[in-house]
């Protein structure tokens, strides 16, 4: 049944300090709401447990994308529109830029925030595999001060995370060191816009010696130097496929390696049947996407063919 607005309290203190003080004074009582693209959907459906909400939309302390020499600091209330239009993000972090472009439609991208996407903790969220691949660091804030946590350990189980009731995500930090990487992402959904993924993947890789800089005919430099593969919608949490990464790292990409990687990927995920897809389809497509990524990564190696072909 639709919610009655008379049953809900919503306040907008306008300052981060006032919000975190409220979260401390009445722990677990206040639900932060930013752009509302998740919270309002639950509210309208009558499924919102919280009765007291505190607006964090437009809190200046949570806004803005700051580019430093080694790191980019993304305010947690940055919208998908801000992410996909940001010059440094589109150039150096295309996995995140494309995830932002694939989320919802334009109106949702104007309101949905990256921090909201993290705490909503949907296993199907498109931007979360990108944050896993880039090994984001989160800065959490509370009246106790700042706490920095690795995003790799943030989601501990379905909708459970390393976030205390009095904490907010303030900033998402990404290291600026992936320019030389092959960056691969795909969203598999029923349509391009407004579709929740059946499977999504974000992967990064680099061969030893970088991309296509070796001498022709020289096999040195074709081994995988670094690789990160993350998938969404195939487990209770967004998942890094570290078993696959371990198999691939240090090896040259070939059909045997791709075969092993496919098997490891299918073994690592825990897909389910649901309204969007089936476990069997998700398993097959995840293996295919991992294979396609590795093929593309292998293709960045120096070519062995004659230069005169």
């Amino acid at each position, binding site marked *: 049944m639709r919610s009655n607005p008379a049953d809900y309290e919503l306040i907008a*203190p306008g300052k981060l300090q006032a919000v975190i003080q409220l979260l401390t004074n009445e722990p677990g009582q206040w639900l932060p709401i930013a752009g509302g693209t998740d919270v309002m959907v639950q509210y309208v459906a009558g499924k919102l447990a919280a009765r007291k909400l505190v607006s964090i939309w437009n809190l200046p302390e949570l806004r803005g994308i700051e580019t430093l020499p080694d790191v980019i600091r993304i305010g947690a209330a940055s919208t998908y529109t801000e992410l996909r239009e940001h010059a440094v993000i589109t150039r150096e972090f295309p996995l995140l830029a494309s995830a932002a472009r694939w989320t919802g439609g*334009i*109106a949702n991208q104007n309101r949905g925030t990256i921090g909201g996407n993290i705490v909503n903790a949907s296993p199907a969220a498109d931007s979360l595999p990108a944050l896993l691949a880039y090994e984001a660091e989160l800065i959490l804030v509370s009246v106790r001060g700042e706490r920095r946590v690795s995003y790799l350990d943030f989601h501990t189980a379905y909708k459970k995370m390393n976030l205390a009731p009095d904490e907010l995500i303030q900033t998402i930090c990404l290291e600026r060191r992936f320019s030389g990487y092959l960056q691969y992402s795909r969203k598999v959904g029923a349509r391009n816009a407004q579709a929740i993924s059946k499977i999504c993947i974000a992967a990064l890789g680099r061969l030893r010696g970088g991309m296509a800089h070796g001498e022709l005919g020289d096999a040195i430099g074709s081994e995988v130097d670094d690789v990160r593969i993350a998938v969404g919608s195939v487990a209770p949490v967004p998942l890094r496929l570290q078993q696959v990464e371990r198999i691939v790292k240090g090896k040259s990409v070939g059909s045997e390696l791709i075969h092993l990687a496919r098997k490891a990927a299918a073994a690592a995920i825990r897909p389910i049947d649901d309204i969007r897809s089936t476990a069997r389809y998700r398993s097959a497509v995840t293996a295919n996407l991992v294979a396609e990524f590795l093929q593309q990564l292998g293709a960045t190696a120096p070519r062995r063919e004659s230069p005169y072909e």
Partner: protein
Amino acid sequence: MPLTAPSKGMADSSGKRKPCELSLTVNGRQKTLRVFPMERLLDVLRHELGLTGTKEGCGEGECGSCSVIMNGVLVNSCLIPALQAAGADITTIEGIASESQLGTMQAAFLECGGAQCGICTPGMILSACHLLNKKPQPTLDEIREGLSGNLCRCTGYMQIFDAVAEAARRGNRS
């Protein structure tokens, strides 16, 4: 900007909250009304202000029927709690036409057959105006993406894309 925040302890003995005062600008007119802070902007527009041009489709941000432009940005009004619209400048479909004359985008929709049953049309037109504000001469792909959050079950979309391209040619001014 600090929003109009109701004071603490606003629940009465029955657990019901009290409405708060909300000021906003809609289609160029300043409005002040009393609403519950969690009332949806969509309901404020339709029920409090009588602006029924904004339609409710899905009520969960999937269909775009309730699209309005808030502070220059396209939003789904079904997902905006009233308090977050405090002080905002809002354009609805009623603000696209002048008293006696259709806006350029509206005229293009009519001429190109971009409107049939009409439920999606106000949202489509606001999304299209938002797109042309950002990209006055969009490609077909940009038009498709700009309207990708607006679902139409009648037209098959092609006439809508034609209408947006036509409005762009005429230099749409929303």
